[in-house]
């Protein structure tokens, strides 16, 4: 299956791109995706926190991804 990853804030700097696609095995979880990305981009591990949103909502741990999902990397937010 193919998902789209959106990288915001510092994660865009770390990944070097704002938007990219990944081919993943069916039923990959959001945690597994994070592990894959942390392996590929080790500085992601140094962040204060790193959450994942799937289709514009925060994902619960273990959330199972589906083909076509839009997955956003959410480093510590700092609005306001």
């Amino acid at each position, binding site marked *: 299956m193919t998902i789209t990853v959106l990288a915001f804030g510092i994660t865009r700097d770390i990944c070097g791109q704002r938007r990219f696609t990944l081919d993943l095995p069916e039923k990959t979880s959001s945690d597994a995706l994070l592990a894959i990305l942390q392996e590929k981009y080790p500085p992601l591990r140094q962040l204060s926190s790193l959450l994942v949103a799937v289709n*514009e909502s925060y994902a619960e741990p273990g959330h199972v991804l589906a083909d076509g999902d839009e997955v956003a990397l959410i480093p510590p*937010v700092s609005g306001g």
Partner: protein
Amino acid sequence: MQFDIQLKDTPLDFEACTRRVMQPDSGGIDVFIGTVRNATRGRAVLRLEFEAYEGMALREMQKIAESAAAQWPLHALVVHHRTGVLLPGEIAVVIAVSAAHRDAAFTACRYLIDTLKQTVPIWKKEVFEDGEVWVAAHP
């Protein structure tokens, strides 16, 4: 109740936001205005660069507004947040709420800005003369 929730890449108008929530049955109006400070820990800030995950940021702001309206008897509620490049002194966020009495307005306004800062996917980068840093990214 309708909420006025916006992300804008143009200057925010706190007077318009305030007027938006004033109504005859409201005896208390609270407005929070967040502005760009000119220094962080003694380092001069040249500018802030705000970035948002727009669709989700609007959804999260809507959730916070709904939560506030469920907790306090509010009459009207405005949340406007900037994106893009802001200079010191410029307004990054305006929150305005009205209620019959001040307690609800004060408490809801505080809740709205505190929760926005915790959950809404907006990020700011501080740019100094000698470098730049994404706020709160690292421990």
